[in-house]
């Protein structure tokens, strides 16, 4: 029962959006090539369900793989930044720079280094997703309760122990906030990666559909991508909930 009540506003909202969409495209004279009718999108979705499932699987795989790497790299970067003032002054600015550099402008480099296989897409996903994890985790480290660190230090804890028993657990909430962002971005990263060159995935599907001027097919891909983004976010959110179920920072 509680489950149902939890989910029903969301379902209602979806229905509402769907109805509005259908009504707007039917009655408001919005051309189908700008926004297709939702019913057409669903038709296209259904007609191509097998194909879409395949492409969605590819994109999902790239997102997950990239995100997994990002978790490792993001946390490592945060640790490094936290551990070394030098890294903070040298590595951090480079990381930041990497985030405002337009990937599309550098796509030849990506292709040169990673080829047209899955790795170039994973690389884009990593570039898209490790930054929020790194920044949130680093800020999490910095927000650690100094008093706890002091107690551990008097017990003779070395920097490794301090890190493992104090900084790391303190950064969990920050990490999970970052993970939620990154999980969402991973889908967009995979899509962009596929645009830079690829044979399959929803990015390729939407791009080809767009070149064929098939609005319904474009939007069916877009809907799946949106759903995938929500799914990734929800998974990250839930994981955070589970991992921090017992903890409450303060009374």
């Amino acid at each position, binding site marked *: 029962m509680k489950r149902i009540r939890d989910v029903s506003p969301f379902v209602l909202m979806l229905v509402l959006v769907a109805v509005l969409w259908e009504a707007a495209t039917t009655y408001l004279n919005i051309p189908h090539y700008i926004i297709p009718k939702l019913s057409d999108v669903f038709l296209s979705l259904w007609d191509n369900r097998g194909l879409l499932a395949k492409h969605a699987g590819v994109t999902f795989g790239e997102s997950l793989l990239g995100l997994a790497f990002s978790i490792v790299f993001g946390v490592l970067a945060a640790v490094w930044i936290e551990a070394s003032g030098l890294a903070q002054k040298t590595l951090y600015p480079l990381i930041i720079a990497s985030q405002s550099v337009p990937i599309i402008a550098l796509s030849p480099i990506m292709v040169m280094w990673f080829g047209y296989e899955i790795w170039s897409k994973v690389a884009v996903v990593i570039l898209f997703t490790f930054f929020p994890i790194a920044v949130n985790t680093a800020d999490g480290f910095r927000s650690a309760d100094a008093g*706890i660190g*002091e*107690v*551990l230090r*008097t017990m*003779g804890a070395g920097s490794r122990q301090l890190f493992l028993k104090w900084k790391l*657990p303190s950064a969990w909430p920050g990490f999970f906030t970052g993970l939620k962002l990154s999980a969402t971005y991973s889908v967009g990263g995979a899509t962009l990666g596929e645009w830079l060159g690829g044979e399959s995935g929803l990015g390729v599907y939407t791009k080809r559909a767009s070149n064929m001027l098939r609005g319904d097919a474009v939007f069916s891909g877009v809907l799946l991508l949106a759903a995938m983004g929500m799914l990734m976010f929800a998974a990250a959110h839930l994981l955070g909930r589970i991992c921090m179920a*017992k903890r*409450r920072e303060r*009374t």
Partner: protein
Amino acid sequence: MSIKETAGLPCLSVQELSYAFAKDKPLFCKLSFDLAEGEFVSLLAQSGMGKTTLFRLIAGLLKPQKGEIYAPKQQIGYMPQRDCLMPWRSVLDNAAVGLEVKGLSKREARRQAFELLPEFGLEGTERRMPHELSGGMRQRVSFMRSLLAGGRLLLLDEPFSALDAMTRISMQEWLLQIWEKHRPTILFITHDVDEALLLSDRLLIASHAPVSRLHGLKVGQPRPRSYETLLTPPFIDLKQRVLELLRPGMPSPEGASAHKEGWE
């Protein structure tokens, strides 16, 4: 430093210590005092005079601005005034953290801590998280953690302030047991003069800020002592002298209670 440390006695030595928080008035000014090996000493001073700061200096958490502190490094059991429990660890894991730091396996650390829980009135709470504890329970977990962390020097910052009379007595008892068994040097902050008299070999009292000297008062009474013996003349006498020292610039010799009689 090493000379003093290996000399065995004193266990803790503070020499010409000066300290001030940036821009504030100094807290300590050329303060010197020693604690002998195995001594139980209570530190008394008004709120805000720098007791906690002194502890953090001794524990090496702050650096003296002048002077030197000789203390057994990394062998300090420090119980902070604020409990500083780790919100992500259960009662058991909080209590056991010191053992883990010492190198024991998590399993063994937990086992040892678990056995002690009943003594601290914490049986059955091992899986609770800190936010599910009462104030006094938190304080006991923190106390337990510092005792388990062990060390030749125990720095206890108001360890029993949140405990009721009964629980407090059993904790005091516990502390004395530990002390008699292992003879660590104990520096103990309390605002309860009775408690200080009951437990300590010696009292150190700060009267004036900035603290440039601590008045020492030997409690020459035999152990074991009890709250009843505190009602005997030597203790009453001692208590009056303590209260006088705590009240700087007050010439009245009748002790604290006399001074404040007429308030409404």
